[in-house]
């Protein structure tokens, strides 16, 4: 027991909520958590949003965000109960024994100071080394973490380096004072998948080299499986399952863990494209304004009736711009769009009501895609009145039918968006699109703001609706797992171009082009040891060249 770096017993955490117009009240957000961590080991804390993982993760630093307080149990770091140590004791603990790596390094660095000053600040503050020693240590860490030009990297300001580099710099900042424990709070979630794998590998190397212990907080089980020795699964502030990483991944005991492990295992049989496509965009080149560089260059894609084309790429690839071009929101500089046998007007203004009806759109953020002042009935009912002239009882009946189709009951008819959960909101948006009885729905990252299990539900619903309504989907996403689950054809985009295009089996079968290879090999797999394999195979490939 005394050898453990961290021991948490019967942890209870409460928060004060202040609902408008009511008296503030206390709610329990975490209860009955027990865990322990040996020196140099990594424990993964995993759960969906609201599971309390960040709250628990921050407890070894004695820190609670916005009104959150630890109200019961003990948190022992190096054998000392930090809840008894007072403000001064906590200051001694933070930065010296326990360090923190935030999700958004871009916000967590002070924009006013150079990176080096911030990286070594803790070391100097706690008088752990002289300035020269600390700077030497920081440069060594920059090198370990694979940052460019490690000697001078620290001279820069936060806004002068990329997001992936900032995340590594934040890890260096946590490692510099040589703490015993680092709390990683979703350190790779904000990054693109091809950047994530490098940062993940860098963090793992750094942990191994320095022998620091770590709590790794994430919602992505596949990511934590690469880095943690043990995993604790959390849900609604309580523990679901706690065990060795291999056991959790390979033989989960609890149904909830099993669901998390088997997420995105949806099977969808690929359909072959028809002779004449429903939608074809030919040689699209587009820029946001004349004079600005092209965001899309010479993009051509086609989509058959009742099928799904997934457009996949990372941020900046132009995939969302392509969606805007097809909807008519951004007229392209060159190229044309043919839909259902006719050429669509490039600008939205020139499109008929019928064109608009047949081409609907679903957004990434469902909560801003619906007017907060309209009820579900108005949101779904408006297209019915607008396109088909339905009113009164007929409209009501159809809205209820649509609610039924999206697996929501009639009790939602009069609700406002604020009264729905994230998944329900996205379902209502789907119903609004379906109400127009379209031939094509553009889905722009529709699952990426949702927790994995909820996202799975949405994907299943979309697939079922495709069967019954014969609607085609143009599915914009950055997530290859989603693509594998639902696509018939795939277009891979990179820097405004389509680099690979074909049926799902063609695109996902080697030989690959360099970018598709990089993209495919960067997606974390739900298995232990994937990261090492991926890095190794990359090294071999680069030696082979």
């Amino acid at each position, binding site marked *: 027991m005394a050898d453990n770096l961290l021991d948490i017993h019967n942890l209870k955490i409460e928060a004060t909520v202040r609902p408008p117009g009511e008296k503030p009240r206390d709610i329990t957000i975490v209860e009955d958590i027990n865990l322990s961590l040996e020196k140099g080991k990594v424990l993964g804390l995993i759960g969906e949003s609201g599971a309390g993982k960040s709250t628990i993760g921050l407890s070894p630093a004695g*820190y609670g965000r916005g009104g959150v307080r630890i109200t019961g149990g003990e948190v022992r770091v190096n054998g000392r109960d930090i809840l008894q140590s007072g403000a001064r004791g906590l200051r001694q603990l933070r930065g010296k024994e326990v*360090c*923190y790596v*935030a999700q958004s390094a871009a916000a967590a660095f002070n924009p006013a100071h150079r990176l080096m000053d911030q990286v070594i600040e803790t070391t100097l503050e706690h008088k752990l080394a002289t300035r020269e020693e600390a700077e030497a240590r920081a440069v060594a860490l920059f090198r370990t973490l694979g940052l460019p030009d490690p000697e001078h990297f620290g001279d820069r300001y936060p*806004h002068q380096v990329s997001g992936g580099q900032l995340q590594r710099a934040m890890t260096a900042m946590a490692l510099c004072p040589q703490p015993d424990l680092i709390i990683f709070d979703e350190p790779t979630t904000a990054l693109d998948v091809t950047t994530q794998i490098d940062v993940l590998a860098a963090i793992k190397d750094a942990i191994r080299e320095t022998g620091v212990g770590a709590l790794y907080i994430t919602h992505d089980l596949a990511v934590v499986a690469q880095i943690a020795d043990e995993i604790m699964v959390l849900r609604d502030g309580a523990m679901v399952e706690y065990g060795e990483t291999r056991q959790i991944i390979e033989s989960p005991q609890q149904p909830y863990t099993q669901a998390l492990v088997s997420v995105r295992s949806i099977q969808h049989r690929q359909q072959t494209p028809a002779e004449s496509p429903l939608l074809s965009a030919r040689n699209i080149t587009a820029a946001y304004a004349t004079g600005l560089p092209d965001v899309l260059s010479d993009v051509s894609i086609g989509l058959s009736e009742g099928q799904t084309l997934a457009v996949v790429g990372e941020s900046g690839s132009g995939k969302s711009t392509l969606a805007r071009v097809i909807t008519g929101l951004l007229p392209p500089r060159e190229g044309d769009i043919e839909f259902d046998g006719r050429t669509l007007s490039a600008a939205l203004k020139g499109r008929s009501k019928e064109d608009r009806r047949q081409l609907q759109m679903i957004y990434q953020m469902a909560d801003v895609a619906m007017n907060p002042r309209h009820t579900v009935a108005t949101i779904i009912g408006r297209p019915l009145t607008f396109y088909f002239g339905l009113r009164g009882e007929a409209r009501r009946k159809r809205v209820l039918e649509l609610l039924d189709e999206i697996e929501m009951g009639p009790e939602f008819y009069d609700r406002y968006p604020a009264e729905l959960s994230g998944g329900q909101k996205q379902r209502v948006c789907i119903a609004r699109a379906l109400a127009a009885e379209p031939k094509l729905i553009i889905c722009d990252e529709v699952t990426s703001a949702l927790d994995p299990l909820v996202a799975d539900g949405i994907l299943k619903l979309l697939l079922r609706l495709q069967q019954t309504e014969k609607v085609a989907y143009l599915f914009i996403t950055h997530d290859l797992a989603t693509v594998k689950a639902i696509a018939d054809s795939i277009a891979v985009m990179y820097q405004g171009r389509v680099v690979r295009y074909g049926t799902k089996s063609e695109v996902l079968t080697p030989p690959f082009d360099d970018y598709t290879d990089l993209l495919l090999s960067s997606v974390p797999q739900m298995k232990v040891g994937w990261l090492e394999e991926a890095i190794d195979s990359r090294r071999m490939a680069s030696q082979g060249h």
Partner: protein
Amino acid sequence: MNTIVVKLIAQRLALGILLLLAVSVLIFAGTQILPGDVAQSILGQSATPEALANLRREMGLNDPAWQRYLSWLGGLLQGDLGTALSNGQDIADSLGGRVANTFFLAFWTAVVAVPLAILLGLVAVRYQNRWPDKVISGSTLTAISLPEFFIGYLLIYLFAVKLGWLPSVSTVYDGMPFIDRMRAIALPGATLTLIILAHMMRMTRAAILNVMQSAYIETAELKGLGGLKIIWRHAFPNSVAPVVNVVMLNLAFLVVGVVVVEVIFVYPGMGQYLIDHVAKRDVPVVQACGLIFAAVYIGLNIVADVVSILSNPRLRHPK
């Protein structure tokens, strides 16, 4: 200093000058909307048509408006503010001493009010949601509801009439000893301070709180830094621009508040002079004073913009 910063500041200054030019057009145009003209208002309703025509010719009122504007502007640029209609005196001469008096009052008010407001703003942040903060928020609400003359006459009633500590009328004259001068502006200065203090406190509080809620403050806390070090090293450099903005905005309020306060205390400043001549419909004086007030107002806004350009690390250290 790098080229981007220099360019931005130059741009801002040029824009300010352009704005001032546009304001001068607006002020000039604003005095042209009345049917009838200056000659009419000088001579009154009973003037003979011949006398009117003579005066009009003499004053150049028969020229088109743009020509009159250009000659007015040309005069302004050479420091010639024209002559007052009511007494025929040179406006620049009569204004000189009064502008100095107004700035004297505004300056000493700012010297007291600005540090006090920032200090109290910091206190409110330090004791957020506790009683000092609540008192400060509550007093703001009251302070922005109080008219200047309520505060002014209340202070006169209490300190000049009932207690007899200070003069009720703020007379100043040339060669007045500094200490007497300060005594004379004590009450108007206090009135102005009360008017802008609460507002400035609340805005300072909001600006600093905004910075204190940033993720990098959390980072600093988790580094184990002490409260003062966090504020000094991490909050302060990022609060400079918003706080300077707040101060400049309130100094602009101050400049306007001066007009009413000068009337209350019969203080021989520019505001008093302006009001007198508005009542006398003395257009050249009103134009000149209006332009000076607007110039100060625009100038303060430019200072705020320049400070925020200078304190922005993204601009100081471009990629």
